[in-house]
């Protein structure tokens, strides 16, 4: 297939070389406009390659010149094609959105860097998912981190931001180290890092090594995915990025970690060790629950969305975990189902999370704030944005007719099959996960009622929100495309589900396409028809309306301050789950001493996550303390230095004497 090869090459060349060079080196508006156009063309090319490979199952392989002794090559097999499709299909609307976002937000110089890095960022993610040698994978993996950090720093570089970026980079690097180790553990058996070699070497690995590889891959990819307790960077890095970048980071970059885990867990290791399923399930359950609980307590929109990414990755992990568990218990059919659920949720989350982040970008564009307490009543002022955002909310909550539901439903069904296993633990654990997933879903619903209700409905809570105007055309276009995708995928899931089923059959040998995917595809249109029919009928018999002020309990009128705030809304849930949050509350009364006649009372509730306090802080402190101790050895006294040399020599000689 020469055509596909050429298309893929042009995708790589456009995104990796031409667009950045044109942006950074070119002069004049025309060149810049041209490069943005070329970027979109490049993404379309990638989309075409991915689409053909995914639906028609035609693999594409590109061999690049090797570096030193290490071969480099890219290959698009069906799994890669799925993820490439995901990347491109999200990048396209995000780039459309960016065309107006970048012009409005950045001066010319920054805009150039923004576009160049954006293009490289998309490319690096594409490289990660299409790499077919370890080296290519790691190159893409590290590039992805650096470039995204650069994109965050373009937005601004105050001290706190730098600190957040630093934590991001550090954790990503540590995670990458784990991934590197996971790859390298193969080396004695595979004699190289080509994926084919790894695949065939996996058969001959000793059990301990299998476990170690799986564990390292799990830790490494979970760090990228933001699984609790490796999530520390996520709520720091995602909110401070420019909105289109947040959309890409949350919507797409996290998915590369899922890709990695699937690649290792299914493609290479064929399920990993026996405990792998429990590990992934537990990680997913903890991340899902804590992620959504942390999200509810937030009132910064982008931080909230970032925590929801933790939650949704948790849901994906639940699917993956149950698939691994089925695989370990010799039930490939259901493993297939769970894997499909996880992969579909990956795609769904990419679509709706980037939609929501773009929505947040549009809000920030119009109101210059992302603090929920200062928003309100935006739906009337930004109808298209509001409608698209509502679609995003419905999807992430998993309401029927939207795409999030399909994947959550498949996950539920796969849990239900757990009861058919012969392994007692799995038999209990899997069905109980239904409860966890239901709780996550319920909390997510509560959270997005809060988000949408407080931001878009009711009265505006600040003058900025009151004077908000609809976002520019391209921004709206980007959001609408994503919203339509969410709805279409929610109504007609089979278009994606049937190739996904074939993909899952490749990854889980010995399975067939599960009947559930046909089942849900059949029932959803009917349900939708019922709902829409009822709505249409009710709309048709609608009586007249009259606008009237609501009753204000006898007061002169209601003000926006009387509405429930975001904090107030989440209070019941926060007080029920108080043990999770462990807030540090301080109440200051002035003047002090008179507890009943205070002039002013200030209340602060601060939350440092327990993980930061009890897990990371001691670790970092220990390293720094060790470094200072070592630094003390460098006393500055030359006599001590000489003593070191003599002592080294003497101890070596002593060793020599005794080891002989």
């Amino acid at each position, binding site marked *: 297939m020469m055509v596909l090869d050429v298309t893929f090459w042009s995708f790589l060349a456009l995104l990796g070389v031409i667009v950045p060079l044109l942006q950074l080196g070119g002069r004049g508006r025309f060149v810049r406009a041209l490069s943005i156009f070329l970027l979109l063309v490049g993404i379309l090319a990638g989309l075409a390659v991915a689409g053909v490979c995914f639906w028609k199952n035609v693999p594409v392989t590109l061999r690049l010149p090797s570096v030193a002794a290490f071969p480099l090559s890219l290959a698009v097999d069906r799994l890669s094609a799925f993820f490439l499709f995901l990347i491109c299909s999200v990048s396209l609307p995000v780039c459309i959105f960016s065309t107006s976002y970048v012009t409005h937000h950045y001066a010319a110089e920054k805009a150039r860097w923004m576009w160049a890095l954006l293009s490289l960022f998309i490319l690096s993610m594409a490289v990660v998912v299409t790499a077919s040698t370890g080296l290519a994978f790691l190159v893409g993996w590290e590039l992805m981190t650096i470039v995204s950090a650069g994109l965050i720093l373009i937005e601004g570089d105050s001290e706190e931001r730098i600190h957040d970026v630093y934590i991001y980079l550090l954790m990503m690097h540590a995670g990458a180290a784990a991934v590197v180790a996971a790859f390298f553990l193969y080396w004695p058996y595979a004699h190289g890092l080509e994926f084919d070699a790894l695949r065939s070497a996996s058969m001959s690995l000793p059990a301990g090594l299998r476990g170690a590889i799986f564990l390292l891959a799990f830790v490494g990819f979970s760090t990228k995915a933001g699984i609790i307790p490796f999530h520390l960077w996520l709520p720091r890095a995602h909110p401070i990025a420019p909105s289109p970048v947040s959309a890409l980071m949350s919507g797409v970059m996290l998915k590369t970690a899922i890709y990695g885990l699937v690649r290792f867990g299914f493609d290479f290791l064929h399920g990993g060790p026996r405990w792998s399923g429990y590990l992934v399930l537990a990680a997913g359950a903890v991340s899902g629950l804590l992620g959504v609980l942390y999200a509810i307590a937030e009132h910064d929109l982008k931080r909230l969305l970032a925590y929801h990414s933790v939650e949704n990755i948790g849901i994906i992990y639940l699917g993956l975990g149950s698939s691994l568990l089925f695989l370990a218990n010799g039930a490939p059919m259901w493993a297939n189902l769970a894997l499909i659920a996880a992969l579909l949720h990956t795609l769904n989350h990419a679509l709706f999370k980037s939609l929501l982040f773009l929505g947040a970008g549009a809000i920030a564009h119009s109101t210059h704030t992302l603090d929920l307490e200062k928003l309100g*009543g935006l739906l009337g002022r930004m109808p298209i944005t509001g409608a698209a955002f509502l679609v995003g909310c419905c999807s992430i909550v998993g309401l029927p*007719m939207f795409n999030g539901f399909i994947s959550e439903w498949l996950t539920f069904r796969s849990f239900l099959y757990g009861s058919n296993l012969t392994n007692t633990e799995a038999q209990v654990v899997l*069905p109980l996960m239904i409860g966890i997933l*239901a709780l996550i879903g319920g909390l997510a*619903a509560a959270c997005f009622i809060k988000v949408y209700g407080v931001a878009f409905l009711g009265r505006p809570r600040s003058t900025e929100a009151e004077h908000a105007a609809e976002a520019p055309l391209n921004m709206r276009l980007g959001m609408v495309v994503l919203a339509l995708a969410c709805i279409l995928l929610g109504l007609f899931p089979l278009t994606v589900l049937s190739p996904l089923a074939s993909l899952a059959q490749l990854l889980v040998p010995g399975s067939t396409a599960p009947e559930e995917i046909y089942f849900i595809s059949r*029932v959803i249109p009917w349900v939708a028809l019922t709902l829409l029919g009822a709505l249409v009928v009710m709309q048709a018999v609608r009586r007249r*309306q009259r606008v009237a002020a609501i009753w204000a309990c006898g007061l002169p009128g209601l003000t926006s301050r009387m509405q*429930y705030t975001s904090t107030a*809304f989440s209070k019941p849930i926060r007080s029920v789950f108080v043990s999770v949050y462990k807030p540090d509350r301080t109440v200051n009364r002035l003047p002090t001493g008179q507890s009943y006649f205070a002039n002013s009372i200030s209340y602060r509730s601060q939350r440092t996550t327990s993980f930061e306090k009890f897990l990371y802080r001691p670790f970092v402190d220990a390293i720094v303390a060790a470094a200072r101790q070592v630094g003390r050895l460098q006393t500055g006294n030359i006599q001590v230095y000489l003593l070191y040399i003599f002592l080294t020599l003497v101890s070596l000689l002593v060793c020599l004497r005794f080891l002989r």
Partner: protein
Amino acid sequence: MTMALGAVQVLILILGAPLARGIIARIKAWFQRRQGASIWRPYAELGKLFQKEDLVPPTSSLIFILAPRVMFAAALAVAAFVPVLQPFALFGSVGDFVLMVYLLALGRFFLALGALDGGGAFGGMGASRDALISTLAEAPLLLALAAVSISARSASITGIVGGTLRQNFFEISAVHILAFAALGMVALAESGRMPVDNPTTHLELTMIHEAMTLEYSGPSLALLEWAGAVKLNIMLALLISLFGPWGMAGSLSPAALGIALGAYLLKMLVLMSVLAVIESSMAKLRMYRVPDFLGVAAALSVLAVFFTMIAKR
């Protein structure tokens, strides 16, 4: 013919819902040694409301009008899942319990949005409290249904009903008892009844569901009220069909259908009496005791799931 009967079942659930409300109110009045209003009064109220015009707050948006309608449409769709007279429902065989629960959630989601769109303080208050309750109710609801579904080896509602039907009443397992208890508790919470919520109060400290509908009027309010009644009716019908389906029409003969209708009405009456007893004898729980109440339901449902494993040995 089966399809037509399915449509009839939906109509029974939808149109009979106000009646069920009326009957419960009447039984409660009887317990409280009052005369009580006519059992048809809810119809009259709905009719009255439908005559009126919709009052819309000046700051609200499209969502405010949309919410009650989505709520009702969702209730309608859910009604098509529940078998009443025969072990069959329109969506009962193709739709499973997860879809059903999520359709209920769809209605709730929009109701809460509509409440927040009012722009007053009470809507937010109600939505916030309702969010807590429905969040906590969702897990036991799904777990209890899952337990039943596991023991019936089917996920669709009609499949579960069929599974229960094949069983003898006296062989009913621990799973069913536990799941029934859990589902009963959740049904109380879901439909906003005592001891979780008091449907008759308008005291700002205590109201939950009522706070959400406070700014609504006219047809919108009517739809909300109706939808609420349908939800209660569905819950009761669901309890009946899942745990006591015996008597349902095996064939489409008039006699069988007659028996089925009679049995349904009887069982309904029993459940409504129980509900009335509970509502008359219990005080509403404090807001922050509700999680404990639902926690018990969750524990029961977890046990139910656990017992499915034991039952299988």
